């Protein structure tokens, strides 16, 4: 008798716990499924569509490409993959040169952003409690205006009859306007200007976390300020540097609006080529192939970044 009553007493408890755990587990599953689902619908599916188009042929149809899957009269399904688009991109030096030029411009812009962004971020972190929110606000403020409008206003500033040239002529510094708009210089200005906040903000977030007493500890142990910077501050801000560089480098490589508006026809970047293939030439398969190659180019630095972040989080 006692045994059975004990059994009755204790049985419901583990059962209830089991249900709670199952509910908890299923919640955990649902929560992890959401981002996967998001990535599936908005990233992976479009990617496969683009990949599919890149393996098709141009056709006069709507949409303007052939289908990969064809049915013969006897009802057999055949899949035809055309790699001509990729071969075409590889053989026509225009594309290779444009890729290289895009990489050159985005890497140079990233370096310029880092060189100027690092001290700016450092300055904001070191600024007083009154100045800090104001300075941060100034960094974010440009986002309140449309990106397109801001690039247009750079056209007004850099044009032959623009603000800078008019000012310099009025001051008598120059007689002839300096050609700035529709040069690579203008593209650099545009990219560095647009992407600077993406360099500064991750650097700021990283530096803000640094314990200020580390600098004092280094000084206390006999290290001069410059040495402290290279031995303590810089190594500890590398995750911020990597994050900032990628946030500038990746979108800058595929940038379309800035080279189109500020570079005109004189600066070839892959984003413009892609757009032209897609809309003017209506050659969707080549445009898709260009996009796939760009993606592959950008995946490499992304993987380096992932690797780096893993190591850095192990450290700290």
């Amino acid at each position, binding site marked *: 008798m006692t045994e059975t009553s004990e059994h009755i007493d204790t049985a419901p408890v583990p059962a209830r716990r089991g249900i709670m755990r199952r509910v908890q587990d299923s919640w955990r599953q649902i929560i992890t499924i959401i981002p996967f689902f998001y990535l599936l619908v908005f990233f992976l599916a479009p990617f496969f569509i683009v990949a599919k188009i890149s393996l098709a042929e141009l056709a006069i149809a709507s949409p303007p490409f052939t289908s990969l899957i064809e049915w013969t009269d006897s009802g057999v399904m055949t899949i035809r993959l055309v790699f001509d688009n990729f071969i075409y991109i590889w053989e026509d030096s225009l594309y290779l040169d444009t890729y290289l030029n895009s990489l050159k411009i985005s890497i140079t812009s990233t370096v310029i952003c880092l060189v100027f962004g690092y001290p700016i971020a450092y300055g904001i972190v070191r600024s007083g409690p009154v100045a800090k929110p104001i300075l941060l606000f100034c960094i974010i403020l440009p986002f309140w205006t449309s990106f397109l409008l801001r690039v247009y206003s750079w056209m007004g500033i850099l044009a032959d009859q623009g603000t800078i040239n008019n000012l310099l002529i009025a001051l008598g510094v120059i007689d002839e306007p300096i050609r700035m708009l529709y040069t690579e210089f203008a593209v650099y200005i545009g990219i560095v200007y647009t992407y600077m906040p993406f360099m500064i903000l991750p650097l700021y977030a990283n530096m803000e976390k640094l*314990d200020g*007493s*580390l600098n*004092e*500890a*280094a*000084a*206390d*142990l*006999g*290290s*001069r300020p410059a*040495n402290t910077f290279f*031995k*303590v501050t810089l*190594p*500890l801000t590398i995750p911020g540097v990597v994050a900032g560089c990628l946030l500038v480098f990746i979108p800058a490589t595929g940038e379309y609006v800035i080279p189109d508006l500020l570079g005109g026809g004189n600066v070839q970047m892959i984003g413009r080529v892609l757009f032209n293939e897609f809309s003017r030439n209506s050659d969707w398969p080549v445009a898709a192939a260009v996009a796939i190659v760009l993606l592959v180019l950008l995946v490499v630095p992304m993987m380096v970044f992932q690797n780096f972040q893993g190591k850095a989080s192990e*450290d*700290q």
Partner: protein
Amino acid sequence: MTVSEPVSATRWLDQEDQKPLVQIKGVTKKYGDVTAVDNVDLDIYPGELFCLLGGSGCGKSTLLRMLAGFEELNSGTITIDGVDMSNVPAYERPTNMMFQSYALFPHMTVEKNVAFGLEQDNVPKRDLADRVHEILKLVELEDFKKRKPKQLSGGQRQRVALARALVKRPKLLLLDEPLAALDKKLRKQTQFELANIQEKVGVTFVVVTHDQEEAMTLASRMAVMDSGRFQQIGTPTEIYEFPETRFVADFIGTANIVEGRVIEEGADHLSVETEIGDVFIDHGHSVSAGSRVWIALRPEKIRLEKTDSPANSPNEVAGVIDDIGYLGETSLYKVRLENDQIIDVTAPNQSRPMNRSHRITWDDKVKISWDASSNMLLTS
């Protein structure tokens, strides 16, 4: 690390023929309108373990940071080993600091953290490795030298911080709340370890703490700070048994403080009329009759007697037990006097209460009394 010869046992006692290592003269530090450190003077002698004790915001950490060179002085001078520090930056001072947060470099191993200071001095490689090894042996962390700070426990990090600060053999080691981040049991154990290490290496320590027990255990001498000023400087015994002000008497340990007026001043005694009754003091204080004074009494120096008879001599008052705090080894009795004032009395529980109830209990009529020498007379 070469362990220097044992420090003389009387290191702080015979100060007359010793030159102070640190001389702080008229030092003031202001942050805007707030005076953090207010015109303080202090001499610290070689080999001392000096504690700066005070509540938060009393200026003790600011003073320590001024010694390290992290804060500029508004006025006054700090001299270390005869050299004026006004124009010496932190990285050139003969001091090392152990930070409250430890401030270990998270990207470096224990070994690299400890070696950092020596590398700045361009110590030759072989010598450097030896010194790092020796100091890690001293703090018992040899087996952990390849680990990063994150892979260590709180107590281990604390020892890395100590090793890193000691390895450069500073003339003066500054410790900012060195034990605050440890749990209570570890803290007690580490207090003694810290004092032992200090004795072994013979470096002068200045320790900032808000924990009076820690200061009492560690210090050879200590200064009690409040609102940027020193309230009293002395050995732990001097501070506890002979406080000079009500603040010190109350801050260090607990004290029952009663107000009174001197009614008779003799050559070797004083009689004071207080709110709780007459008090007779048998040690010589020269306070003129009629002046306002305070008497401080330590709870453990008061005797408790269960009796109905009224108090009839000085240093004796009748009361009723208002509350009891049973702490195991001692009990704290709150005795309500006739004027409703509460006096704290602690008594050791020297016998077991065999019938599970204590000899003295709630609402018992009691008489408290104390020795004439236990009265601590305070004039401010």
